[in-house]
């Protein structure tokens, strides 16, 4: 009843093209942002920051990145973990080589470096498609991790090959290193997530986004109507890797503080992020957040429920948690193959008709 677009007329094409054309949506969005920036930082504790919100935001960034590549441009990638590793190692090298430069610049540069690596590994996509490409991106995954493991220069010759994030500050606050407070971590990631989500939204609703979607939906037709597949695909790889690289850089420097390529950026990470975008919704920025939230929160919730509340043995709980998450994934796919974002959109569509059934 309250959810209406009637009476919400647009008088210019500019208004019509905005991100949230319906007023109610727009308000909701502003409210969420206000809470995220003005309320959460004051109430957050280190459990919520480290176990929930910071990983959620970082994974959301990675998911947006992968969503650009897979959801918008249709190139299935299983190399996300490897690209995150590039971001992490790039930021580590930059941080230790140029300690004076603000960390934010390092993080953005790490994204740029990852973008270049992404383009390199995107080249086969010009020939190889679909699942063949997905499997081919695994080559990037395994090769990159191997590289960071094998070449001591990347980990500054430390004995075990681990990298550790030294302390760096912004406006007098530590944002990396052990002294970082929960609000500082959270805000750093939040700013990146919001800005990047906004950029992703702009890119995907404009020319570049249409090129990507055209390639995704029917690459041959796209080429015949004038889309250059080379630039479209490679730009998708570049932008996507940029996002993923930043996520990797944040994951290492702000969230974990220490990392090792094969452990933190293994194949499981690639799958996890692919899960996020599919559960959340392919081709949807909102879905990237929803998917990340789902897969970060669900295990934590289940664990708390099964172990803390029901008092089950941890191993049994862990096995059953696997079963439940697996079953839920299947369940969600059956209910709505296009993810949480579509589920949300359909709910809204129904609300709009409400109280009429159709």
């Amino acid at each position, binding site marked *: 009843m309250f959810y209406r677009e009637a009476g919400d007329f647009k008088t210019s094409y500019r208004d019509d093209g905005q991100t949230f054309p319906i007023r109610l949506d727009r308000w909701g969005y502003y409210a969420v942002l206000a809470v995220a920036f003005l309320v959460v930082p004051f109430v957050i504790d*280190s*459990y919520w920051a*480290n*176990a929930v919100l910071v*990983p959620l935001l970082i994974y959301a960034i990675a998911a947006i990145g992968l969503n650009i590549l897979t959801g918008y441009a249709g190139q299935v990638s299983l190399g996300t973990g490897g690209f995150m590793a590039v971001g992490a190692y790039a930021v580590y090298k930059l941080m*230790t080589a140029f300690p004076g430069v603000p960390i934010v610049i390092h993080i953005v540069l790490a994204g740029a470096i990852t973008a270049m690596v992404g383009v390199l590994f995107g080249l086969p996509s010009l020939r190889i498609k679909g699942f063949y490409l997905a499997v081919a991106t695994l080559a990037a995954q395994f090769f990159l991790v*191997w590289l960071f*493991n094998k070449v001591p220069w990347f980990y500054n010759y*430390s*004995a*075990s*090959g*681990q990298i*550790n994030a*030294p*302390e760096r500050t912004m406006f007098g606050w530590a944002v990396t*290193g*052990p*002294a970082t407070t929960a609000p500082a971590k959270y805000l750093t990631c939040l700013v990146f997530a919001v800005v990047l989500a906004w950029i992703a939204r702009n890119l995907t609703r404009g020319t570049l986004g249409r090129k990507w979607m055209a390639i995704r939906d029917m690459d041959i037709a796209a080429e015949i109507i004038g889309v250059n597949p080379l630039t479209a695909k490679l730009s998708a790889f570049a932008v996507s890797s940029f996002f993923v690289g930043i996520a990797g850089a944040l994951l290492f420097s702000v*969230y*974990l*503080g*220490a*990392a*090792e390529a*094969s*452990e*933190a950026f293994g194949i*499981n990470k690639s799958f996890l992020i692919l899960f996020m975008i599919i559960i959340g919704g392919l081709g949807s920025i909102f879905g990237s957040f929803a998917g990340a939230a789902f897969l970060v929160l669900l*295990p*934590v919730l289940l*664990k708390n429920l099964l*172990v803390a509340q029901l008092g089950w*043995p*941890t*191993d049994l*709980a*862990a*096995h059953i948690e*696997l079963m439940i998450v697996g079953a839920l994934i299947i369940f969600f796919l059956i209910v709505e193959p296009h993810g949480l974002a579509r589920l949300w959109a359909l709910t809204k569509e129904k609300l709009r008709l409400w109280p009429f059934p159709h």
Partner: protein
Amino acid sequence: DLVVPNLSYRTGPYGANGTQYADGFNDYFTLLNERDGGIGGEKILTPECETAYNTEKGVECYEATKGDGALVYNPLSTGITYQLIPKVSADKIPLYTPGYGRTSAKNGKVFEWVFNAPANYWDGASVAIKYLLEQNGGDLNGKKIALVYHNSAYGKEPIRTLQELSKKHGFTLSELPVDPPGQEQKSQWLQIRRDKPDYVIMWGWGVMNQTAIQEAANIRFPMENMIGIWWSGSEVDVLPVGAAANGYKALTFHGVGMDYPVYEDMKKFVIEPGKASQGGPHVGSVLYSRGMYAAVVIAEAIRKAQELAGTSAITAAQLRDGFEALDITPERLTELGLPDFGPEVKMTCDNHGGSGMSRMQQWDAAAGKWTLISDFTEPDQEILAPLILEDSEAYAKEAGITPRC
């Protein structure tokens, strides 16, 4: 109550190993609670949290449990340890990593909150070489030693030490990495078959161990010339290989089997009343014993801390003092019902790693058990000390730590 969280892993690729360790850890504290009413009158709680050997889950577990007044962490994962080192330093909670984790944490001047007695990886590497020296009348000149290692931070730990030792003793070292999980090791073992090294040292974990032992048996590499680090020397590693694994050797820094008086109490107070972790299927196994050993050291540190602080309800910071003043003598071990179970452990403000002693055990396939075949041996500190100093100082510089003590 005192809280000692058990960050365990009972699932995932290393679940089979993690389970046994976690059981030993739990059971010893259960024993103390049941028999003695805890330590100094305080019951010990060991809330368990599943990490699946995954660093992010490890962090989640750490955050979830640290609020409950956690006294010390023991995550049984080198990766998680690296993750937690900066965190425990900021939160001022001790981290106890016997036989794993960051080797240079031995330097207490830099790593105030991390303890890794009785032995670390480099100690292990050195003791293994020492053992081989002994076998060869003190001379390894011209011998060929191959290192088969888990291609990860953990597996790479001994390389530097072994390289230094090879310079000192004149053996040649060849390094053969195995990508985890490591079910396919044909290339590595064909290389060994071709190069015919005199000895193979193995730094594996999980399925890699048994595959390596199986492959060694397949190419008829003499088992007694193959030495595993302590993480490559448990029943799960040799049992699947069967009789062919007979004679395989591995390091250990604690005793094995149930021939210790403590098990009488264990049976009486824990196992028979049905209080054993998971019903006690692994009691007495190598990894179980190691979990128990970690619990013994922590319990002793708690006792020491209570003594120093004059209160039974100690804090994490007081426990650090307890660790730094810890001295587990052979007599004390006997008192605990564990005669000769481990080496003497003595930690100080600058030495968080103890003596570094470990010993050799050998698998007897027919009897289905490990037998100890050497005494506790000291590592070659001459080589190790500078390495540890170098690595820890580099870390201090990177992290901006001013050494203490």
